[in-house]
């Protein structure tokens, strides 16, 4: 039998390794010096992935630049200092009672209340931890919606207890057994809203940090939300986790330093169209961008008396987005 050429010997060794990476490389004296490279090459990232990620990053940089290049806003400060998160905006029946609930249940601090002559609330803000929750009395234009909100608090047990004492119904008490790995409980308030009450465990947040309040959207076709928010807002999905069938089991969407969470609606977790208030670098640009991406304009950009450039859109999933860019109080 003729002796195999070095290139044949090498390929036999490579075949063996590609078939079973754990198998020892067969001794092939002539090519032995090349074999260590085989395992190394197998582990390298593919150039296609590197190029794809580079393109994603460049696209994001480009979109952020577009959004911040308008002459109508101050590009270096578009967000109110005390408004770091994407705020869930609750429209509820009997908003004064809802404020009392937020204060009692979540150690909230009422910081703005704009009443109407009839005593109902046109607009209010309650600070919770490092974040803010907005609310108003529901109206024909903005009917009550049952929304889901994720709270990260220092002591989930204490907050859960306070929520129940304030009138919420426990779904389950905080437990270390929650599959998220966090200490996690769930309660429903008497206004129809769901609260995930969690205390973060494991590695502490790094550079990315986290906020106390995050809207949590159960969506029908959640996988379609990701390209929408990318195109509409220049947002990005982090921690995307899909089922083998391609359904989004969980993702956190980051936009301009704030976050919300999504998953695919199923079983008892049916779609929860929500109201969301987010500060963006340029409301005008983002409004146009969102419309191009498939959103419906509800109110075109306008300058509000309280110092925001504001607009309202409805996304294809039924959520209402209040876009705002802080441009400063009028002199």
């Amino acid at each position, binding site marked *: 039998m003729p002796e195999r050429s070095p290139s044949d010997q090498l390929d036999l060794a490579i075949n063996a390794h590609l078939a079973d990476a754990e198998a020892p490389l067969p001794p092939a004296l002539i090519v032995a010096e090349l074999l260590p*490279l085989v395992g190394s*090459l197998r582990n390298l990232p593919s150039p296609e992935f590197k190029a794809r990620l580079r393109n994603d990053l460049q696209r994001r940089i480009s979109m952020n630049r577009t959004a911040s290049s308008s002459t109508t806003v101050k590009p270096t400060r578009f967000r109110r200092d005390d408004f770091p998160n994407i705020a869930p905006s609750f429209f509820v029946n009997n908003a004064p009672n809802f404020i009392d609930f937020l204060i009692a249940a979540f150690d909230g601090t009422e910081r703005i209340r704009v009443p109407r002559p009839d005593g109902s609330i046109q607009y209010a803000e309650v600070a919770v931890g490092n974040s803010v929750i907005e609310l108003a009395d529901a109206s024909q234009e903005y009917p009550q919606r049952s929304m889901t909100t994720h709270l990260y608090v220092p002591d989930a047990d204490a907050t859960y207890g306070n929520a129940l004492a304030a009138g919420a119904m426990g779904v389950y008490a905080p437990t270390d057994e929650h*599959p998220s790995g966090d200490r996690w409980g769930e309660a429903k308030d008497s206004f129809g809203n769901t609260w995930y009450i969690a205390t973060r465990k494991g590695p502490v947040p*790094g550079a990315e940090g986290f906020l106390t309040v995050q809207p949590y959207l159960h969506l029908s076709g959640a996988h379609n939300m990701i390209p929408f928010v990318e195109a509409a807002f220049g947002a990005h999905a982090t921690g995307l986790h899909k089922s083998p069938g391609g359904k989004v089991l969980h993702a956190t969407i980051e936009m301009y330093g704030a976050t919300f969470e999504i998953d695919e609606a199923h079983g008892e977790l049916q779609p929860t169209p929500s109201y969301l208030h987010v500060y963006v670098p340029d409301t005008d640009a983002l409004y146009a961008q969102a419309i191009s991406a498939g959103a419906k304009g509800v109110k075109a950009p306008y300058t509000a008396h309280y110092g925001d450039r504001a607009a309202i859109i409805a996304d294809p999933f039924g959520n209402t987005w209040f876009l705002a860019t802080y441009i400063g109080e009028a002199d």
Partner: protein
Amino acid sequence: MASRRPGGKLSQPASDRSLVEAAQADPSKFEALYELYFELVYLFILGRVHNRATVEDLTSEVFHKALANLSTYECRETPFSAWLFRIASNAIADQFKRASRERRGTEDTLDARADISSVEMEFVERQAMLSQLVEKLPELQGRVIKKRFFEQRSIKEIAQLMGKTEGSVKQLQFRALQTLRQQMEDRDA
């Protein structure tokens, strides 16, 4: 493309600092950091998570987070690579939680260490260097290596795709590995 420093470990060369500062001032300069650290981050994660698709997802997550939070990074406090590794370790921990939440079992065990030993760093840097050397191979050799190892195609498939005989593809593969080995030795020297 920015070239990788030999034996860089976790030190913070002034050139890296200037790249970071340039990207903080102008995000379009982030690409230089990406080119410099992509392989390191990918291989850092690969050392802890063994599912290739998950490694790609997490690598993507790390760079998007790094880009979004670059303004918060302080050169004086920690090397840029350590900052990236910290983001990666948090992403790994979150991934593990999500996999647990799904209750389908986990294909990976949790290894969210943000620290990296000098031995591991040396290994990762050698791998990163190899990745960049593949990019510099002569065109035909490079195509064979990418199809053989990144796409895991057979010699027969590659021969058909490239319109060559299986024997010549094996020769190209052989010469490519010789080239890479020689260049790795030259770099080490």
